[in-house]
């Protein structure tokens, strides 16, 4: 046996002892400054919208019309000014965050889970399963997602739950497509065959060996969809199928402010900035996660 053992040539440092997988991923994430910034930004937005009650009163400031104080520019009384019904824009942006962030995040998670499942099954099993699943997805993709969402909400009725279902269903096909194609590239690699050779069941191969290797493009898609989803909520609200327009929400605030863009641009600026910040936070978090999950990018 002696001679098959190799003397280890110098140069390569022994990797440090590993704690748990999660810890290493967390550590790697925290090393990425932009990703940390994204996370902080996200937390700030969440805290501000959850703690909105501390700064303003929901009923009095964000819902009740106050025609005397309509269209006031930002100032000491109203930090972000007031809208055409005299509601405080600052309060509405804060409370609106609750819905936009909550609905957005949940929708992405639901469609991520659904899309991954369908895409993974289609990509891994191939053949008939692939054909049937992907043709169904194609049908959904053929309908513009906004129309699809409109018809689902119309069928199920208004409400936050139905809104999320509608948005998820309309974005699942996109996830399924991306997951399927990344699964296909991973599936052909030898380590998947090795796992089959030592008796791994299909489910474990997909979940343990394939999906983690296909995660990059999936996360990117998820973070990019976030922006889209927030805007979709507003479009649906705009046509009266999302939430009642009195309920503050970033998207509907934007569409309401459109008419005043010329003379009262602050109306569109504040909810717009809020959306941009949220989307940016998601993108940064997404990029950070993708890198942290990839051991190849570890320093």
């Amino acid at each position, binding site marked *: 046996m002696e001679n098959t053992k*190799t003397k280890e040539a110098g140069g390569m440092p022994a990797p440090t002892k590993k704690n748990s997988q999660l810890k290493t991923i967390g550590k790697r994430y925290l090393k990425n400054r932009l990703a940390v910034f994204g996370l902080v930004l996200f937390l700030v937005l969440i805290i501000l919208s959850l703690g909105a009650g501390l700064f303003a009163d929901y009923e009095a400031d964000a819902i009740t019309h106050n025609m005397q104080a309509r269209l006031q520019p930002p100032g000491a009384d109203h930090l972000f000014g007031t809208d055409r019904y005299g509601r405080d824009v600052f309060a509405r942006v804060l409370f609106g965050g609750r819905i936009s962030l909550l609905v957005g995040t949940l929708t992405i998670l639901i469609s991520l889970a659904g899309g991954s499942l369908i895409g993974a099954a289609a990509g891994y099993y191939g053949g008939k399963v692939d054909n049937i699943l992907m043709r169904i997805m194609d049908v959904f993709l053929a309908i513009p997602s906004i129309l699809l969402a409109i018809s689902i909400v119309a069928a199920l009725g208004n409400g936050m739950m139905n809104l999320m279902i509608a948005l998820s269903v309309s974005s699942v096909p996109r996830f399924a497509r991306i997951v399927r194609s990344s699964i296909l590239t991973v599936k052909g690699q030898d380590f998947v065959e090795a796992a089959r050779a030592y008796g791994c069941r299909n489910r474990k191969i997909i979940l343990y060996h394939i999906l983690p290797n296909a995660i990059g493009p999936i996360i990117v898609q998820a973070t990019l969809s976030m922006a889209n989803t927030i805007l979709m909520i507003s479009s649906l609200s705009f046509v009266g199928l999302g939430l009642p327009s009195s309920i503050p929400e970033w998207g509907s605030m934007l569409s309401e402010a459109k008419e005043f863009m010329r003379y009262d641009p602050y109306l569109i600026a504040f909810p717009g900035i809020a959306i941009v910040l949220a989307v940016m936070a998601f993108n940064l978090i997404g990029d950070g996660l993708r890198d942290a999950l990839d051991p190849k990018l570890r320093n």
Partner: protein
Amino acid sequence: MATPILETRNLTKYFKTARGNLHAVDDINLSIEKGKTLGVVGESGCGKSTLGRVILRLIEATGGEILFEGKDLRTLNARQMEGMRQQLQIIFQDPFSSLNPRLSVSEIITDPIRTNKLLTGKAEIQERVVELMHTVGLSDRFINAYPHELDGGRRQRIGVARALALNPKFIVCDEPVSALDVSIQAQILNLMMDLQEQRELTYLFITHDMSVVKHISNQIMVMYMGQCVEVSPTEELFEQPMHPYTQALLSAIPVPKLQRDRKRRHLVRGEVTSPVNPLPGCRFAARCPHARPECTGEVIPLTERGPGHFVSCVLPVR
């Protein structure tokens, strides 16, 4: 003669393509004794890798039998096959795609053990992983390393350790050293021969490299376009190659010696095409320097020309 541990009878695998059936593995009969190595050589596309995977049922055969210790693997259902998988393992060519980049070395070696529930205690498994790493000549300081942090030779050792984790009896080695540098290649070959001796392992050693195959095999099968054209004990094949294709393969190997009065190589013309709906007869005939009319039209059976030396060619012995 000892009973073979693995045999195939009329094993075939056809792939359906747009142009017709691709005969990737066509009527292969082979048998390997316990503790021995059968080398399978041939150029890319000759079906040698498919053969290895068909034997392990990673690809389902179209027809024929795969007898492992007398049992036909093709008659087993999925559950029964899972039970057999411990005994039949595979080592791959590419040390980069054969290891899951998301798993650490210990996770890679542990997974087969856990999957087959060979050991359950955490400490036991850990101990076994370290033992396996030592067996293949890897320092255990790499236990938490990720594959991309290691070079090709070390990665290939992990591949060997993963295959050994289940104490298999039979291993398909699919070009295990082709992607490695020569000095590393020799280390891995030595390791594989040592392991074979210690554990009475049986190898099906697939390669395109005639010098490597000579080194490690007891018996060699030469494949061309899905068929076996010659099979023989190793020494005999190198001393007396009989099929013109084998002769061409052997003479094409560059030898690291200066030969001023070098004899002309048996250069073969043309290149391999893929065997889609092939006609009966010798598939090498189109490139063969000795081709004659009787080469095509009829199936040319393997005939015994010496002890254990079978050739599929119409030419008489020269």
